[in-house]
């Protein structure tokens, strides 16, 4: 019973900085990993190709342009 009350107190009222730090740490990891990923060597040409995808329209076989 005492133990249960203690858990309740901890979960309710304490700041639990561990969880806050864990969240931030996870985010920083994702963020930095993404940065490293997007600036990896030789990616510039690749992204220049991707960037053009919405601008490429397939030619219509039956006349008008799409």
């Amino acid at each position, binding site marked *: 019973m005492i133990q249960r009350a203690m858990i309740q107190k901890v979960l309710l*009222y304490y700041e*639990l900085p561990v969880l806050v730090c864990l969240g931030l740490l996870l*985010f920083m990891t994702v963020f930095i990993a993404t940065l490293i990923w997007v600036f990896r060597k030789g990616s510039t040409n690749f992204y220049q190709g991707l960037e053009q995808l*919405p601008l490429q329209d397939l030619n219509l*076989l039956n006349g008008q342009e799409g």
Partner: protein
Amino acid sequence: MSLESSESSKDQPLKPQLENFSYDDAIVKKFLIMTLVWGAVALLVGVVIAVQLADWRFNFGLPWITFGRLRPLHTNAAIFAFAGNAIFAGIYYSTQRLLKTRMASDLLSQIHFWGWQAIIVAAALTLPLGYTVGKEYAELELPIKLAITVVWVVFAVNYFKTLLQRRERHIYVAIWFYIATIITVALLHVINSINLPVSFWKSYPVYAGVQDALVQWWYGHNAVAFFLTTPFLGLMYYFLPKAAGLPVYSYRLSIVHFWSLVFIYIWAGPHHLLYSTLPEWAQTLGMIFSVMLWAPSWGGMVNGLLTLRGAWHRVRTEPILKFFVAGLTFYGMATFEGPLLSVKSVSAIAHYTDWIIAHVHGGTLGWNGFLIFAMIYWLVPKLWKTELYSVKLAHVHFWTAFLGTLIYTVSMWTAGITQGLMWRAVDPSGHLVYPDFIETVIKIIPLYFLRAIGGFLYLGSFFLMLYNIVKTIAKAPKTKAPDVVSAYRLTPVALSNLSQLGDRPHRILEGLPAVFSVLTLIAVIVGTVIELIPVFLGNQHVAASSSLKPYTGLELHGRDIYVREGCYVCHSQMIRPILSETMRYGEYSREQESIYDHPFQWGSKRIGPDLARLGGKYPDLWHYRHMLDPREVTPGSLMPAYPWLYRDKTDFRAIPKKLKVMKSLGVPYTEMDLAQAEADALSHAKKIADRLISQGVPATVQNQEIIALIAYLQRLGEDFKKGLIQ
């Protein structure tokens, strides 16, 4: 899937094969037309409820158009019908082009379309009838919730099948945003919809109190994130470059934008629960992540605006670009304001006020609306192979809508800050300067009128667009033959043979929707688990150690009436530990007080005062008269009257089943409680009725619904007053 690891394909030479096909544009047209239809409905209902707040008489004393029932209809229509249909139109159009393929199954597309419209019609019928779960943007009752799940799965299956049969190996960033939307909305909807039915049209959530609040706002905030943000960013990344004829400013930034946004958003929900009984650490997490959201949001905005580099002069002459630029600017404004509002000290003033309403409408009218308009003006001439009927009218639409949005947000900012400050004002002798809540309402009524004018302008401008589009479609050529295009089929590539892609293996990520979907799912689940699980554990302990008595049958029935009438859209039941608030309402709320509340009714807006400590504040007769005509007891009140509660009879026979369902949800009713539920409720009602009758109320009162509602209202905060809670 194009990247199967089949042994045989390893040795075979690649044989590119040219294939002819056509896009399914009929489905795009359908969704687009329904966007226009439901947009008109959503905005119209919005204007109606704005007018109802300015003048209560517009409730007309009719149950099904009273404010508490119409407001959920407005929000659901705006989000799921107007924005929803627009999202689907844009997704079906852009996905087929970006993947160089037709949607995998026309049948599934049709089921998606008709299913979604049927759901909207069901919502438009049931919400005014008072069938509601009582949780914001998740009001729809269980059968409709199930239908949503089915239709969403149909959409997802069709979408992923389309991805697998694509003719473009690389997946453009817009598609990432769509995938994140599909996956996360499914997760949010399912977890927040776990309810137990009492009858066909009535169910209770399995969560209670603080758990329910956390799940609800985890859902609610991420409905904003994954229904009103990620799909719209996807649309922006496709349609803005299209309209500008320029590639996105920075593709790299779009990737960083995507992952940061998806990862951070899911944590932000608790900013709706600051100063509530949600554990401190969860509030802190929500606040920190909300503040961090500012960065990726602005990254996206900047990326959009800079896409127009070198094309700025065209913004003056092209209404489509105007809508994009203004939309992105409103997005920037709303995503700056959001983090600001998540700071606890700002929330202390702004929460429960119209500032939040201003914030939401800056986002929906300004960002979602304008992006939808830009997309419609761009798509309609393309789809119907014609020119826009009137560019000039589109400019007029822009300026009228812009003015409407401005009037709306400015009036609500002013109303919110004014009322927020009045609630807090304490004079040097330590008393509230405005102890009568109604004073703070009367003060802002002129701003409610102004807001209604802003809404009218926006609605009017919408009709200008409607006219313009109808005229455009009317003059379109009547050709029926679909356009045929051709593209090379993708040859399956063995995983062991990745070099065939012409890139180094690590670039394969962009080509692997499965891996990508899993990563997205992980990103959203991490935040969910870290936030939700500890609160669930903590709450379990509170519930287990509680000796509180649950609601009586009559009180529970009254609570259902409270939920049905949407009282929660105007009243909170959560007193924050802030001095001016405890002076006005009494002791701040405690976690235990809502452990039996399926659903929680903490509310999010105080158009009327908090009700958490209402019990015993007034005699029954006061409530009896107040609900019949609020202005009789509180002159100047804008609360609707509820005459039908004095006509409709309480269904006492329904009560035992309610207790039974509650018991199976963990509420500690005894077998005896269940067995005597109906008789107990009848005698409880008689006690209240006798008191009222002795004070001159007609003798027919005993079976009227008002008695059950009074029983509930008088119970609010009673446990605390009896000293059952410390």
